[in-house]
């Protein structure tokens, strides 16, 4: 659980998926308190985070399973669904409860989703952005080598940083259907230990 420098890494659980009616429904793998549902239109792909499940006080990041991808559909008829307040509130879910519905027909480029948007980059070109706000760490422990150096070629699943959010460390992985499969690191934006906001640029990239 704890690294030698005392950092705790968030644990992960893979969501269950059911395909029906042209949509993919992501379901809770076990009972827990769910929060952090992705906003409507966010484009998700396997390995990406679709919220958090708290189980007996331990928070697990919920990963999109293989074979599931697409844009998040707004869950209708729930008052306030999709609002930030709702997304941050915890709610109890049982195993098999539907958490997120994806429309595979809508991929990057076809939507104005948060992640797609963040991948558009700014004047400086392509950027990989923070999935959430927190303290940025470039290396797994003070003595260890950095996760990423300028010039590295990134592929999906490569850890590029840790973000400390409320005393919990989250592994930030390169990927997402909006990002190129392989990308070269041109610059690392924050310094080790900087506080970053959600969707702040972490890396400047070019397709490789």
């Amino acid at each position, binding site marked *: 659980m704890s690294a030698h420098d005392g950092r705790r890494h968030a644990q992960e659980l893979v969501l269950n998926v059911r395909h029906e009616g042209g949509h993919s429904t992501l379901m809770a793998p*076990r*009972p*827990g308190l769910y929060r952090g549902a992705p906003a409507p239109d966010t484009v998700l792909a396997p390995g990406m985070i679709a919220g958090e499940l708290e189980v*007996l006080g331990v928070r697990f990041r919920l990963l999109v399973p293989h074979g599931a991808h697409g844009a998040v559909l707004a869950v209708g008829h729930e008052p306030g669904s999709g609002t930030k307040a709702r997304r941050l509130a915890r709610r*109890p879910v049982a*195993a*098999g*409860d539907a958490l997120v519905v994806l429309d595979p027909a809508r991929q990057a480029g076809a939507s104005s989703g948060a992640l797609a948007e963040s991948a558009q980059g700014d004047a400086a070109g392509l950027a990989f952005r923070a999935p959430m706000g927190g303290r940025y760490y470039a290396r797994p422990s003070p003595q260890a080598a950095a996760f990423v150096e300028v010039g590295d070629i990134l592929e999906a699943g490569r850890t590029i940083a840790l973000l400390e959010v409320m005393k919990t460390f989250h592994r930030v992985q390169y990927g997402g259907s909006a990002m190129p499969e392989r990308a070269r690191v041109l610059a690392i934006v924050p310094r080790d230990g900087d506080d970053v906001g959600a969707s702040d640029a972490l890396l400047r990239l070019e397709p490789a």
Partner: protein
Amino acid sequence: MTGPASFHRLFIANRGEVAARIARACDKLGIVPVFGVSEADRGAPYLEGRESVLLGPGRSALSYLDLTRVVQAAKQSRCSALHPGWGFLSENPALAALCEQHGITFVGPSAAVMALMGRKTPAKQAMKRAGLTLIPGSDGVLADADAAVEAAERTGYPVLFKAESGGGGRGMRIARRAEEVRTAFEDARAEATAAFGDPRVYMEKLLEGGRHVEIQLMADRFGQVVHVGERDCTVQRNHQKLIEESPSPVLAPAERERTLEAAVRAAASIGYVGAGTMEFLLDEGGTLRYMEMNTRLQVEHPVSEMRSGLDLMVEMIRVAAGHRLSVAQQDAQLRGHAIECRINAEDPSQGFKPCPGTLTRFELPDLEGGAVRVDTHVASGYVVPPFYDSLLCKVIVHADTREDAIARMRRALSSMVIEGVETTIPLHLAVLASDEFGASRHDTRRIPGWPPA
């Protein structure tokens, strides 16, 4: 109910017959039960109109046996108590500890008492101090093969090596002669290591041809312990009980009194709370020798309920909520004779092959104004899932005498209709009709009257 508050919502960390039984007790107490269920049990008749939380898939390891799923489900469904039933996690001290950590009352004894009784030799020493008779054997766990030889020579053959953290018949080896001791000891160690992660082994004299007798105990948080008599569970197959009755037809009154009193003292001496059962071997000389304590209510508890008129499930929930036992020893009067038959979806004529499938018809017998009781979670149309044990229902009868109880049970089983799967009813009818069972000449080695001649 007066006195301390009760629970508003109670989580049932189990399935099937025991889950339905716990829910009935909750209904009596005005408690809302919430069921933890697996995908395989979703839609079962006993869940109709009930609150439930899906724990995970049919495989028990990912649902009923997963501590964190169970406790998290209890917590998020706002239950202040959790009942483990029997089987699954019911004797796992880690569940009691985890509940405590999360502010949920575990309906059962403390984690410490469960852990003590789960370790065989300290439990035996505690029981011996309270005056119970043990099976002769080694003093505690055996250090090495030389110690095993020394203990076996002193005790006399045949001997049985057993795992300190064991259960379910695993980690057990018999030695009938001196030259078998070292091999049996080493094999038991190896199997115990593989099965329980604990190589420690102790030794007992192997007593063959005995009967299985157990004592029902109830205890509250105020140190009061009451026994509800004994049950004789000698009709078994591979350590699986088939028929239980009370009183034991062969136990001498003096030995009964002596052991009941010692069992009450023993439970009090370890600070036991809730329902528990001490299991004994009744040897050929008529002495009850302590084997182990089950720190939970047991499948066959209705036998004791029929004789005492008590609702043991209700009592154990009330005790967990901080109430005193509703009866003192002198008020726990035991009347008549009770017998229980376990009806499993198994084919006794095909080596007890399990028979999952659909119950096309399930019809209860005449309950004879309460003298016949059927505890079940099934109904016509129920699909017996392949993941779990094969119990369909338990039929319990009460009468003034053993002969009348046997006659009543034969009547009840003959008029019961179960179609779609094979059941153990033919076996029970053969046993009940046999002279061997009628005269109580049987022991645990063989089922009386089966197979039919």
